């Protein structure tokens, strides 16, 4: 024990400086209250990582495309850089969230599907909104995403632990194309109906093939 005269407190032997005012103290020894030295856990923060490189490249490409688009607008009066930018952001998501991430595969598919839908919608809008994205691409990709999730759940036998939440989420997302139809943004009904019927059948299938387990899982997820 040493007294720190500046702070008026006694400082434990393990310290060669006062923890309150950093005044150097003479004695240093062992103590029961000592903490680990942390030397190994102080790590140098890496200035260069693959994720940072991709982020930088993506931002550079977006800035460049907007610049070129703006400078050549008098020659080609189209805002093509928006499509390029959305595409690049989509690519960035693919790298960051799908390839470099260790999140659960169900979440990856869900996220990926939402990003893809936005990307397709943007392209559709900027090439004169013919409605192919909302009519066909988005609902059909939704069916595909649900299908992949179901297959993975069966193959990996992880349905009850992880996947069912995402499959339920896909069911609600697949309901969205229906809204597009109601609000007159979409003129083709069969694709939306198909995606809803498909996810409904998936859920009915789960109920039939797994009885009690499913009911308890639903209760747990919805929290009754």
């Amino acid at each position, binding site marked *: 024990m040493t007294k720190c005269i500046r702070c008026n*407190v006694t400082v*434990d032997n393990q310290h060669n400086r006062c*923890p*309150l005012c950093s005044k150097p103290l003479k004695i240093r020894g062992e103590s029961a209250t000592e*903490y*680990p030295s942390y030397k190994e*856990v102080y790590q140098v923060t890496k200035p260069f990582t693959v994720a940072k490189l991709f982020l930088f490249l993506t931002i550079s490409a977006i800035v460049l495309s907007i610049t070129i688009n703006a400078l050549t607008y008098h020659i080609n009066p189209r805002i093509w850089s928006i499509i390029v930018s959305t595409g690049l952001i989509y690519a960035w998501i693919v790298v960051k969230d799908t390839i470099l991430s260790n999140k659960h595969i169900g979440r990856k598919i869900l996220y990926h599907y939402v990003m893809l839908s936005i990307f397709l919608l943007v392209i559709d809008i900027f090439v004169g909104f013919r409605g192919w994205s909302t009519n066909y691409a988005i609902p059909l990709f939704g069916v595909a995403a649900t299908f992949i999730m179901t297959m993975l759940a069966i193959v990996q036998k992880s349905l009850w632990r992880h996947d069912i939440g995402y499959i339920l989420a896909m069911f609600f997302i697949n309901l969205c194309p229906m809204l597009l139809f109601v609000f007159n943004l979409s003129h083709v009904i069969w694709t939306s109906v198909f995606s809803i019927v498909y996810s409904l059948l998936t859920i009915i299938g789960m109920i039939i093939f797994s009885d009690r387990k499913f009911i*308890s899982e639903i209760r747990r997820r919805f*929290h009754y």
Partner: protein
Amino acid sequence: MKKWYKLDNAAKLFPSVTNTKNTSVYRISAVLTNPVDVDALQQAADTVFDRFPMFTVKLRRGVFWNYLESSTDKIVIAEDQQYPCRNIDPTTNNGYLFKVLYYKNRVSVEVFHALTDGNGAVEFLKSLLYYYLLYMGHEIDTEDRILLADSGVDIHDMEDAFRRYYKDCYVESVRNSRAYHIKGTAFEQFGNNVVHGVVSASQLNALAKQKGSTITAYLSALLSYSIYQTRIKYSKSNAPVVIAVPVNLRKAFPSRTLRNFFGVVNLGARITEDTTLDELIFRMNEMLKYKTGKENLQNIIYNNVALERNKATLFVPLFLKNWFVNLGFHMLGESKRTLTLSNIGNIILPQQMNEHVELIEALVYPSNKSPMNCGISSVNDKLVITFTRNIVESDILQYFFSTLAGEAGLEVEIYSNDWGISE
């Protein structure tokens, strides 16, 4: 089929607001008289496993709610290597939301707040230490103060006491102004620095009594005063200093639950050049007395439960809930408090355990807006005041401890983990 539990009413907040800089992980440690024996500690952890099913759970994300799923994986004890109250990575640690750590003479339990509050963690630590000492060959009479592994799980341990004591009542929402916030320089490497100050519990208690106050009110006042003297005095701010004090609700509303059952009361004061410390102690004590009155605590329970009882929230997807909870936490919680001072109180151990336990420490995780928090705990007449901070500046605690030693005349003994200090 694995068993599962709903998160209790206080716990729902934590998964939404947690990140690497606001970890919601607190630590309670015991410094023993002898170095820790790893095998005996692991054996003790294995023994208490069955008695604390509320701890051996993993956090799962549902579509609309988070929930806890029980697990049979072992509790793996580990050597303490990282800074305290670091966020718990659910992909390690067998997916558990708490850790049992050891280093030299110290046994620490780090707990994600969604599992339980300080009271529950202390019960766990006591049982763990009891079996540890037993396996080290000591004979101990439990005096009925320890939850034993073979006593079976009590249904009351698991209750969400918020629900039991929920009563519909009218609560006036008070618009409080923003509190003063402590600013500081981040450590070169993000982490938590801990400074402990040990004083005599009976001497501090006598001192507080002499001022007509309790330990919690006295230390809250001294801390507010320190913040004024070191910071606010030299700034243009006239924001109030607000100390958030978690209150164990089990005292006013009897419950044996090992889950969360606490409320937070705010002790605020606008301090000026003319405010004296004695005056501040008086004000803080009155406020604490009033705010921990049964009626006021009943309102806290109401506020905790009311939102969840709203049927509409049943169908809001989890990610949206997280977003709203986060917003509410920052607007209503974090911005209205300067720091948290948590007093887990005097821990009474069986007589024969006392000689093996030197100190009990309570570490409250800091966050971005509240970069320094305070935890208080005592055992065997030794009271430890712990500051956990993620900023370099130590001016406030220097003033605090110096005043405690100088003007109050207490013997203060300081030690620290020196995070970010030693080169």
